[in-house]
């Protein structure tokens, strides 16, 4: 390790930044470490927010992670507002500057919004999740705009709490993420549980009084529920990097070790890594962890550190089904069933991907299946 590295700053306290901080220590770094997080909360599990945390039975602990052991100075509730990569300084809200020898950029992303209306609710952070959970307790009628995993999980959670729920989607929900086959399985389960599905070319929101919003479909109809939740993707938080040349197209481009330059790594939802399909953001829990590990080693050891070898792992829980998927997403065409079959618990594979539906399986085995290994355990 270079003797010159005595100060590392990690900006972002989600799972990507948290993992990078721990990975630096695991790799032997014992210098000053500072973690900056804009939320006052300790790092938490974001996947849990739209799953267990929405449920009535959850005791508001399902998102909690173990206490960090990285020994960093934690500046929580503190936002980074600027970066001078030549002088190696992070500027914090309030004007204080943090000097560094190595920097980890892990400021993640935020919910993309369709409007500025107060009646448009989104779910991205812990505060959002708790607010939504409270609103749903009164069993409002709900329209969810967006048919990706988050929209479907929110719709599922609201249905389970006794709400009448309509989901508005461009095309079949989940198809862009999981392919037509798995999307069909999930949509069938959703309908069976009472979800109303509306496909539209486009939807926009307009005000309905001071607090509420209504949904206007491109084809004409208006939807006027008690509660509108949008789940239409995420926008990387790169504004604080303006003028640095590190995020000119709204993402931070990094090499296969997560480095944007030799002294700066970027990890998690805002980082575009090289993949077989070109430079891509893959905003998933497991990806953020892999990014954090790889980039921490690269910051300390440069090109002698191993590059990222990513086989994305994704899971969702919705409408009573648990789906775990590994490999190149979305898988195309019909799968081969390895165990089980249509309509029940099943293990299936495509060329380059594998999925388990309501089927507990060691993920390393799912990874082997996705990679084309024989089906035996």
């Amino acid at each position, binding site marked *: 390790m270079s003797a010159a590295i005595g100060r590392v700053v990690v900006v972002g306290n989600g799972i990507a930044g*948290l*993992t990078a901080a*721990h990975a630096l220590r*695991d790799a032997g770094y014992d210098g000053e470490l500072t973690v900056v997080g804009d939320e006052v909360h300790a790092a938490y*599990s974001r*996947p*849990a927010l739209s799953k*267990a945390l929405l449920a009535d039975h959850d005791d508001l*602990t*399902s*998102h*909690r*992670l*173990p206490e960090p*052991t990285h020994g960093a100075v934690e500046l929580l509730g503190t936002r980074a507002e600027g970066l001078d990569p030549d002088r190696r300084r992070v500027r914090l809200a309030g004007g204080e500057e943090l000097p560094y020898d190595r920097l980890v950029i892990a400021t993640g992303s935020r919910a993309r919004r369709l409007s500025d209306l107060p009646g448009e609710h989104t779910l991205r952070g812990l505060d959002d999740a708790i607010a939504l959970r409270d609103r749903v307790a009164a069993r409002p009628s709900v329209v969810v705009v967006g048919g990706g995993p988050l929209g479907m999980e929110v719709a599922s959670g609201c249905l389970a709490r006794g709400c009448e729920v309509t989901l508005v989607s461009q095309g079949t929900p989940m198809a862009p993420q999981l392919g037509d086959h798995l999307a069909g399985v999930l949509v069938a389960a959703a309908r069976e549980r009472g979800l109303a599905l509306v496909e539209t070319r486009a939807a926009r929101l307009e005000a309905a009084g001071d607090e509420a919003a209504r949904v206007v479909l491109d084809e004409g109809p208006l939807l006027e529920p008690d509660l509108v939740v949008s789940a239409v993707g995420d926008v990387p938080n790169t504004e604080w990097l303006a003028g640095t040349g590190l995020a000119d197209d709204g993402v931070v481009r990094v090499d296969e070790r997560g480095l944007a330059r030799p002294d700066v790594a970027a990890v998690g939802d805002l980082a575009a890594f090289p993949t077989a399909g070109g430079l891509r953001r893959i905003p998933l*829990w*497991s990806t953020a*962890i892999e990014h954090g590990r790889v980039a921490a080693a690269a910051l300390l050891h440069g090109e002698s550190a191993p590059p990222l070898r990513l086989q994305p*792992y994704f*899971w969702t829980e919705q409408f009573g089904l*648990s789906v*775990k998927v590994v490999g190149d997403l979305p898988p195309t065409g019909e799968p081969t069933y390895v165990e089980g079959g249509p309509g029940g618990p099943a293990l299936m594979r495509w060329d380059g991907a594998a999925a388990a539906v309501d*089927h*507990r*399986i*060691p*993920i*390393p085995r799912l990874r082997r299946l996705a990679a084309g290994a024989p089906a035996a*355990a």
Partner: protein
Amino acid sequence: MKIVLDRPRCEGHGLCEEAAPHLMHLDDAGELVLDREEIGAEDVAAAKAAARVCPVAALRVE
């Protein structure tokens, strides 16, 4: 130190196994098995790494 599993919480993602394969594994039914619960100093870092990657916080090291 000791690894503690909150079994009802475990969803079998197996990210812990990838972090500490010598301490735990998912069996053929997808249930997590702790191969060692009492751990020595040499395994604490791996056990903590396993606990930290669990998205449902089902593992503790204490």
